[in-house]
């Protein structure tokens, strides 16, 4: 039963990883930018919810109503003010700019909040669980996190597939210059993509901050797990990212069931195996630019 338990918990954990990775996957898919500040932006959102809880007594999920639009606005500004300029400077420039941004943000958070670990308090929701069978129970919060991950990925997928803006985003991803000839302003569209990505990062950050403790340096681990989920699933494929998150989560949970020290390691090993045997990921996107 403990193996079944490990797999079930791993799947739920994978949903959370997919939630964290969704924005990374979207930004890469649309602009071919690997946003190295993705993890620390999630931590920024968690601190935002923490401050709202500390000063106004807002429940973390209520704080989302503020944190999500603020992060979306930050994303639009970040893209228009910084990343669009970096895109003109070759393939390496956006990578270096987001790396620099991650360093600056992490140190700014350290300056503002010190290195103390915090946690977002969910109240009774944090410990509630649903018994499934004897010896197998599913926590309400991990379930909620996984469902949110699936919903966010499905919503982004529907947005890209069905709306005019989503269609324009896919066209721009294919051929930005040709898209401009159709009247599409690539700079604005990229801003919208990053705004959506950071809105999902805000949700992810609050879930991460409620799941375990976080501090200003937590962005690195967050980024690595998200990046692994994206690469395992296949770069630029949203449903691949969900699958990648689940594979990573199950690997970590099963590894931890063998020995608690092996959890994270097992995840990295699976990542390396996938990278070595299927470098384009499990569900590579049909068209590569």
């Amino acid at each position, binding site marked *: 039963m403990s193996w079944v338990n490990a797999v079930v918990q791993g799947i739920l954990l994978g949903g959370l990883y997919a939630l964290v990775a969704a924005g990374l996957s979207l930004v890469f898919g649309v602009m071919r930018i690997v946003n190295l500040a993705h993890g620390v932006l999630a931590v920024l959102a968690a601190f935002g919810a923490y401050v709202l809880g500390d000063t106004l007594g807002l429940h973390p999920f209520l704080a989302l109503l503020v944190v999500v639009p603020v992060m979306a606005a930050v994303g639009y500004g970040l893209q228009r003010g910084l990343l669009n300029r970096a895109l003109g400077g070759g393939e390496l420039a956006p990578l270096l700019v987001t790396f620099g941004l991650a360093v600056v943000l992490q140190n700014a958070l350290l300056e503002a909040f010190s290195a103390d670990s915090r946690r977002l308090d969910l109240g009774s929701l944090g410990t509630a669980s649903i018994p499934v069978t004897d010896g197998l129970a599913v926590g309400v919060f991990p379930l909620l996190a996984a469902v949110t991950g699936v919903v966010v990925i499905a919503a982004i997928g529907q947005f890209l597939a069905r709306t005019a803006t989503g*269609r324009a985003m896919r066209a721009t991803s294919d051929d930005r210059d040709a898209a401009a*000839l159709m*009247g599409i*302003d690539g700079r604005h569209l990229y801003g919208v993509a990053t705004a959506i990505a950071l809105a999902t990062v805000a949700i992810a950050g609050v879930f991460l901050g409620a799941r375990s403790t976080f501090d200003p340096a937590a962005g690195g681990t967050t980024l690595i797990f998200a990046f692994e989920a994206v690469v395992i699933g296949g770069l630029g494929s949203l449903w691949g990212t969900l699958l990648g998150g689940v594979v990573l989560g199950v690997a970590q949970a099963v590894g931890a069931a063998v020995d608690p020290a092996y959890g994270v390691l097992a995840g990295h090993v699976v990542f390396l195996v996938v990278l070595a045997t299927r470098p384009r990921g499990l569900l590579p996107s*049909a*068209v590569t630019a």
Partner: protein
Amino acid sequence: MSALLEVDAVDVSYGDAQALFGLSVTVAEGETLAVIGANGAGKSTLLKTVAGVVRPRRGDVRLDGASLSGVPAHRRVGRGIAMSPEGRRLFPSLTVEENLLVGAHSRRPGPWALDAVYALFPLVAERRARSAANLSGGEQQAVAIGRALMANPRLLLLDEVSLGLAPVVVAQLYAALPQITAQGTTVLVVEQDVHQALAVADRVQCLLEGRTVLEGPADRVDTAALSAAYFGVDA
């Protein structure tokens, strides 16, 4: 007839290589102008300059008398300039119908919509659900022209429609042109295929190394002089 498009003495360079030398082109409202010339004559550069993809170093481009300098490519579509670019440049991850819908992104009102484009190119209608990556060259070109029409342009720019296509396919594509001009659309077509260009155009302008070497009405142009101008040899 008043001038819809005025390209006024433009110099265009790519780095150190100058492609257009004080080139002037005027297209009247409702007219079809064919710009012909050999490879490297500056034909595609001219269209890119009108579309706003490249900026002239000197000179001006005016639409209906209003200067387009400082108007980026994506906003020129809203002003009524749409282009079917060289090499078609369809969006391969989108379906044919999605490609057409992207063409309507600027939401200019006018006669062209999905139904009208499908009526113009029945073959495109049959392929509407197919990925644009899986089309023959002729089908791709038809979609590219349809996609430009979806913007309901006042000025339609067609770049090298014949490129890489069998003559029978090229003839089929150009057969659609009268139905486009019948809507009052002004057309600036760039073409290496001189016979095709002369057949569809009201007026023809021949470029050589970034300068105009010959221009005149398409039905009265002297073919010997034209071929001399095309290849840059004295007649």
